[in-house]
């Protein structure tokens, strides 16, 4: 019969791997690059908006295009605020394991909402574009040839960009759902064992 001390002795016989400072710092640098990547993405997005804004206010664009762009800009603004509000759990810090599990669940539920909303937004914007564009072509009195060519170009652009965002959102939704399922399973086991 093993005594408790023996159990501790057996456990302590493990040969442990201790990572080097270099390895941990490499992980830190990778993390830092990821964070800078997100910052760069935000900066590029805003630079694009700043570059485009004067074009809108100097009436270089048709009024219908301005309406579309203002709607797009407004939605983007609301979307950013909403997503950052959802991400608020990421800034919290919890040490106790049960609290940490709750925090992880909240984070993943927010991720799930972000993914679902992104997918809905892509579908909505695509539908809105296909309703808006013929009206725009009619108001601007485009010829059928011009209309079809520009519609084709816009559709290809939308399919590529929208498709990529939709694909990302779908992947993000699935991976968040799997994470949440595993968390729910662990919480269930945790409760049963107590």
């Amino acid at each position: 019969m093993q005594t408790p001390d023996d159990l501790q002795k057996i456990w302590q016989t493990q040969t442990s791997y201790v990572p080097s400072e270099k390895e941990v710092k490499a992980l830190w640098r990778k993390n830092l690059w990821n964070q800078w990547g997100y910052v760069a993405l935000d900066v590029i997005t805003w630079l694009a908006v700043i570059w485009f804004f004067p074009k809108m206010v100097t009436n270089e664009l048709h009024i219908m295009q301005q309406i579309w762009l203002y709607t797009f800009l407004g939605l983007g603004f609301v979307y950013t605020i909403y997503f950052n509000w959802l991400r608020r759990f990421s800034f919290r810090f919890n040490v106790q394991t049960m609290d940490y599990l709750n925090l992880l669940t909240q984070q993943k539920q927010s991720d799930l909402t972000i993914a679902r909303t992104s997918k809905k937004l892509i579908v909505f914007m695509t539908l809105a574009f296909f309703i808006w564009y013929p009206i725009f072509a009619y108001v601007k009195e485009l010829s059928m040839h011009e209309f079809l060519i520009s519609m084709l170009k816009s559709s290809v652009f939308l399919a590529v960009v929208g498709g990529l965002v939709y694909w990302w959102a779908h992947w993000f939704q699935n991976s968040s759902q799997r994470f949440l399922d595993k968390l729910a399973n662990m919480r269930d086991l945790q409760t049963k064992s107590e």
Partner: protein
Amino acid sequence: MASLLKEYGALFDRVAAAYEANFAIRQELTQEIVFHVWQSLKHFRGDSQLKTYVLKIAHNRGVQHVSKEVKRIQPELITEDSATVSGADYEAEQAQQLNILMKTIRELPLSQRQVATLYLEGLSYQEIAEVSGNTQSNVGVMINRIKTKLQEALNHANT
């Protein structure tokens, strides 16, 4: 960083071992644990022992590791606990006992797994209660159940 690794590096790897059997992935988990503990040190207010604080962070990373998808190595490439059993440092019997112990611990529910690891690391009931967020009496009950399970597994293997 150097002092953190020197003081607790081996401890973090033993915690990682309770959450991951594959040695290559376990190494990555240990690196992640060290990284997150290092990042979390700025939140340490000194209202508990540093050891119990870092253990909380380490276990939380372990929990997250179990939840998230990890890249899976092909079964034929898996060298389960290779560093712990393949060396010439251990007698075959000791290595076998350690493997059974590790396997049994990994099969425990999350809360029991955490308490088991802390108990095996030699923490007092009070410290275990502090890390796990349980009461001391609850910890006592859990440890008795865990010991019974671990001893049964070892005895079963010996017969």
